[in-house]
């Protein structure tokens, strides 16, 4: 079942169409990567899902129902531009934000206790937000996003502003939330975290969805059917169907050559042929990274 579906969303601003016929399906319980270059329309889409703005055309379905105000309580949103009341105490602020999401003060208090122990931030309760470092504020904001245990969590660039240790902490939290059954929509430019975390992706470019599906399927789609081999010696007289691509010498004195084989050929045949000719150190398929896919699909380098 899809937790979220968008059907033919169009969002038009005065001079500019932010979203053009965008349809997406987000399966329940996955981590869904929403990718795209700056200004592609990701934030517009996220705002529509959060009911901050409405689409000009198209529908959004949440668990099969048309999006309605009640659904807000089942969604948690961490915007890219973080913000908290600077002069408000951490504890009070989190209680306030949780109550806006419909928790009672008591419920919020209980849940907060768990998080404060988990993150070991008990001493922060009575501190003003402005007295915390940026990374600490980010943690607070993360807690605020997930405190009401939403079914759908939308994280816009969740790792920006975190040092590697805290980024890892947040990553583990995200995986744990997924384990507990939450669905996470994850908007980012950082392809390495997409590679690591996402099950599904959708790529938006210039207001249009240009790609979506399970990560593995997409990788399959973008496969170039090339293999690389590290060896010593020279490869001569391979059958025509195997095309030798570029070669280069590695630092430790081996040669790395990329070889393309046609879809109908067997990899085993190539390996056998190679073993007869050179001393092989390693052999492997060139699987496209998310970065490669992004560049290929969008035609430009992702900016972080």
């Amino acid at each position: 079942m899809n937790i979220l579906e968008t059907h033919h969303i169009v969002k038009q601003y005065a001079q500019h169409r932010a979203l053009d016929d965008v349809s997406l399906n987000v399966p329940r319980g996955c981590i869904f990567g929403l990718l795209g270059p700056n200004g592609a329309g990701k934030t517009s889409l996220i705002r529509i899902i959060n009911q901050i703005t409405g689409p000009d055309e198209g529908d959004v379905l949440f668990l099969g129902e048309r999006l309605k105000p009640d659904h807000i309580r089942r969604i948690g949103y961490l915007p890219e531009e973080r913000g908290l009341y600077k002069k408000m105490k951490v504890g009070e602020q989190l209680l306030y934000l949780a109550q806006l999401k419909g928790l009672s003060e008591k419920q919020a208090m209980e849940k907060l206790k768990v998080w404060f122990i988990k993150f070991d931030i008990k001493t922060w309760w009575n501190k003003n937000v402005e007295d915390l470092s940026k990374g600490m504020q980010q943690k607070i904001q993360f807690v605020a996003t997930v405190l009401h245990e939403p079914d759908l969590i939308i994280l816009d660039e969740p790792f920006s502003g975190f040092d590697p240790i805290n980024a890892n902490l947040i990553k583990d939290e995200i995986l744990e939330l997924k384990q507990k059954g939450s669905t996470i929509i994850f908007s980012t430019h950082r392809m390495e975290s997409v590679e690591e975390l996402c099950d599904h992706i959708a790529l938006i470019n210039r207001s249009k969805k240009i790609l979506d599906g399970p990560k593995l399927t997409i990788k399959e789609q973008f496969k170039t059917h090339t293999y690389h081999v590290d060896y010593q010696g020279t490869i001569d007289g391979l059958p025509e169907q195997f095309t030798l691509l570029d070669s280069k010498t590695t630092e430790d004195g081996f040669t790395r050559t990329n070889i393309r084989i046609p879809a109908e050929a067997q990899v085993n045949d190539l390996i056998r042929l190679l073993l007869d000719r050179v001393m092989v150190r390693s052999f492997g398929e060139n699987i496209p990274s998310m970065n490669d896919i992004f560049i290929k699909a969008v035609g430009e380098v992702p900016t972080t």
Partner: protein
Amino acid sequence: MNTIFLVLKREYLVRVRKKSFIIMTILGPLLSFGFYAMMIFLAVSSVDEKKIEVIDASGMFKGKIPSTETYKFSYPEVAFADAKKNFLDSKYDVLAYIPADIMKNPKGIQLYAEKGVSYEIKSEIEKAVEREIENIKLTQAGITRKVLEEAKVSVDSDTISLNEEGEKESSTGAATAVGGICAFVLYITMMIYGTQVMRSITEEKTNRIVEVIISSIKPFQLMLGKILGVAMVGLTQFLLWILLTVGLFTIAPGIMEKRAEVAASVSTQVTPDGTSAKGGKKATVVQADNPVTKVMKAVGTLNLPLIIGCFLFYYLGGYLLYSALFGAIGAAVDNEADTQQFVFPIMLPIIFSFGIAQFVLRDPDGGLAFWASMIPFTSPIVMMVRVPLGVPVWELALSMVLLVLGFIGTIWLASRIYRVGILMYGKKPTFKEMSKWLFYKG
């Protein structure tokens, strides 16, 4: 509804807990009272005694110009030429010369001083001389001094408002003063609290917290919660001020009466030949003239519950009307510096209505007063000037209904601009763009 209340509560508590709020609420009135007291004190105490030497060539005015606390007149028997020559070395501050033919040539008085003569001294002397000439001429015409004394009547009219409820003693002075004060307080508070709403909305936008909040609640709920929260802060402040003033006024007359008694006993002592009954009579006279008692009595003739009720209503109405507009500006811009150009057109009607209020004080039932107290943009201040003086019920009711419609209108308008504005960053919008936002969909 619940979420509006949550926002309201936060906005209220954040402000009321601030030290500046407590200080302003308690010290504000005390400071302004103290400031006035100090000014009066300085004005009274800083005036030095001036010695004035009168050379009276006519011989008619000796001892006739009454000395006051600040002006001491003396009449040395010296020739004018000598006095003028010795003036700089003498103990006198001013030298006044009254020529012999003063009766025929009343313009002949000459005043000398080292640095120039203040207007007050000049008029004091002129008045005294005029009075004396008048007396002399009247006496010459056969009217005795006694008749003159009796003919001098001090006129002070009692104004009585006549309406369906019958005669009621009213105090125009007190009503005008109370109206003026109400208008002034409304003027100040609409400005202060209006800009407070604006600043706080801009701050939320700059902080980027707004996106987190409006992913939980509707922009309209956030805006309304904030506006109402600040309104409650204002009400709290007024309530404390009213309590404080009532407190001051209940304590103050006690102190004043005590002082009046002291004054009375002093006055009995200075009249050694007077009987004790005379002294007692004097004491009551002093008490009745005591300014605080007088003010209290005058204020007591006003319909205070109506005035306070109307004041709170017009405060809320005017505040809601303007703070919504201020809020829309706050949402439209990115930072406080950009608000300047938009704020002026909104402040203009507030300033304008305070200006109208000055005219209305003089002519509370004229056409300007009527229309200005109907139009919601000016009615809070202008109507509050008229209320203490008495306004027909239908006018008051109509003005209130129009004000309610007015603030519902501006809140609607503001919420349309607000919901678009808080998500717009970058370029400073123009009024034209903002008017387009009104018609944006969802």
